[in-house]
């Protein structure tokens, strides 16, 4: 299979070129103006930032592959991977329970706290009606997603697959990071503690690839282990973007 398109949203903003150009982000969060795309995000008034990251990056990967939502159908698959899911919405729902009681919570917050809400928004915005799967993992998300995409393409479950990773910051998880996941804490011996690998600094965003069968049928992406946006860009340069 090959990478036919790529889409990126991060604290640097939106778009592959912006990330190739580098630069220093203003903060760890995706800038608010990055999410102001009324064309792609129409019909997503109730969606949270996590869903918006995913939808924008998936849309950009699709269009970078010379396709549009009008070209998609039930042969287009989606694989969305995340470690933490829409955690700001999850904590927002807990706020509702604590502040208003069990019987006065927001059903919209609850439905958007479910991990696969973002995959639904991608599917709805881009008209993808093929297999759609969300995977929760702390380890090698892109490798797992690409491997499953390869299986879908070779078995005929899909002719094209959007594979993407999405994460979102939250204040509670910053606290958890400071106490469990920064390298200094992670170096301490904690019996029976098997958590995700130490992380220097947390950030947020989404990265999507549009994968299609390669022209010669070779499975050239096998064995790639991509964990970061930098790795993703390097891989795209290596294997050709389109």
């Amino acid at each position, binding site marked *: 299979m090959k990478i036919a398109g790529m889409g990126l949203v991060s604290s640097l903003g939106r778009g592959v070129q912006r990330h190739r150009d580098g630069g220093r982000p203003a903060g760890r969060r995706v800038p608010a103006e990055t999410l102001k795309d009324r064309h792609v995000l129409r019909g997503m008034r109730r969606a949270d930032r996590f869903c918006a990251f995913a939808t924008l990056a998936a849309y950009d990967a699709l269009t970078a592959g010379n396709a549009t939502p009008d070209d998609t159908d*039930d042969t287009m698959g*989606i694989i969305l991977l995340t470690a*933490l*899911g829409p*955690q700001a919405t*999850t904590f927002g*729902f*807990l*706020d509702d*329970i*604590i502040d208003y*009681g*069990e*019987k006065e*919570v*927001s*059903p919209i917050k*609850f*439905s*958007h*706290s*479910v*991990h*696969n*809400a973002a995959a*639904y*928004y991608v*599917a*709805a915005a881009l008209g*993808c*009606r*093929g*297999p*759609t*799967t*969300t*995977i*929760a*993992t*702390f*380890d090698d998300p892109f490798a*797992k997603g690409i491997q*499953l995409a390869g*299986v*879908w393409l*070779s*078995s005929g*479950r899909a002719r094209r697959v959007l594979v993407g990773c999405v994460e979102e910051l939250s204040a*509670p*998880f910053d*606290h*958890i990071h400071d*106490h*469990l*996941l920064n390298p200094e804490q992670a170096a301490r011996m904690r019996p*029976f*503690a*098997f*958590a*995700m690998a130490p992380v220097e600094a947390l950030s947020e965003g989404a990265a999507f690839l549009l994968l299609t069968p390669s022209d010669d049928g070779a499975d050239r992406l096998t064995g790639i282990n991509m964990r970061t946006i930098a790795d993703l860009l390097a891989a795209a340069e290596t294997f050709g973007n389109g």
Partner: protein
Amino acid sequence: MRDYQADLTHAGAAFDDEAIVVSGLGVISAAGAGCEASLVALKAGGRTCGPVKRFATTIDKPVFEVSEQLKKWHGEGTRALDLALAAVEEALRSANLSPPPADLRVGVCLGTTVASQLNDLEFYRQYRETGTGAVAAPERFLAGNPAAALKRRYGFRGPDMTVVNACSSGADAIGVARDWLTAGLCDVVVAGGTDELNQVPLTGFHSLGILSDTPCRPFDRDRTGLNLGEGAGVVVLEKARTARTRGVRPSVACAGYGTYADAYHLTAPRPDGGALEKAVRRAMADARVAPGDVAFVNAHGTATPDNDRVEGATLARVFGPRICVCSTKGHTGHTLGAAGGIEAVFTVLALQNGWIPPTLGFENQDDDIPLSPTRTVTPLAGRHAVSTSLAFGGNNSALVFSLPAGRRR
């Protein structure tokens, strides 16, 4: 009652080498801990739902809780992992894989919803009040990704994946496992779903207004919503050639899988059931069976007005109104990410034992649903069965399970 384990290992008929077979089963739900107990409960048809007992809540809706004392995960584990452990240990034992040989590449693919969310209210309450909070709950969460945790516990050397497709997670995990085996990514896969019931999903489903005040009534004219439940259901899958090499002769194959998205609404099913129909037809195409070959459908059948109307009409369109359909939600409640796994196990047990469970709660025909679900224990006539799952987010998935040719009931 027949001994299901003997049935798993001493079947007379055989599958082709490349067939993906079910060599082990494990299940725990409010209907019972283990396959034997579940068969007794499914046949007896008693209801075990009642008020929430395991945590404090002001929501007075019946639920299906697992009452058995669970073997604890080592260290600090989650209840979802405890439930998974019960099902996985039974499944590995019944597959003669306890422990698995070192030369087998064993993968693990589990579905869940609750175990994927850091939604510990006590941690969060403390964090809000003090700006800090004990990290035990987050640590449990970080270590509690079900597939990764099981891989570590058993030393599995194959791929691991935790599928979080809401209520179709368990079925999709089994579908992914089937695809892994077909692609040769591993030799054996432990696959299914696990979910615990806690205050957060109970509160969330209550806010959606789809919890019933009474025991649920799948497909019934007077159905008023679902009851939540908890549990885990796990199958062990491998190629028939691998099973034979190990001296195991499974009696049921996981013959097909299909999954398509509605791309219609976050919480409501597409009214025409088009994606569900495609999922069922793709699963049957994988299995090379026609609608007329299918003996019964173990339906998602949550007892919400929308789900049952769309699913019932779609199944009637694909199979005709005389198809034998059951829903086991009246025995277990809706176990969310575990449902597809538990119902896959029940479907395999039905094929092995020759009878289909009653649809507890179904009494009155709904004029909008041209199906007549089982009211009593019903003899099985045929060798193929379909299990369907519909989910939040518009996922529609179907699995086909089959007895081997020459083993028609």
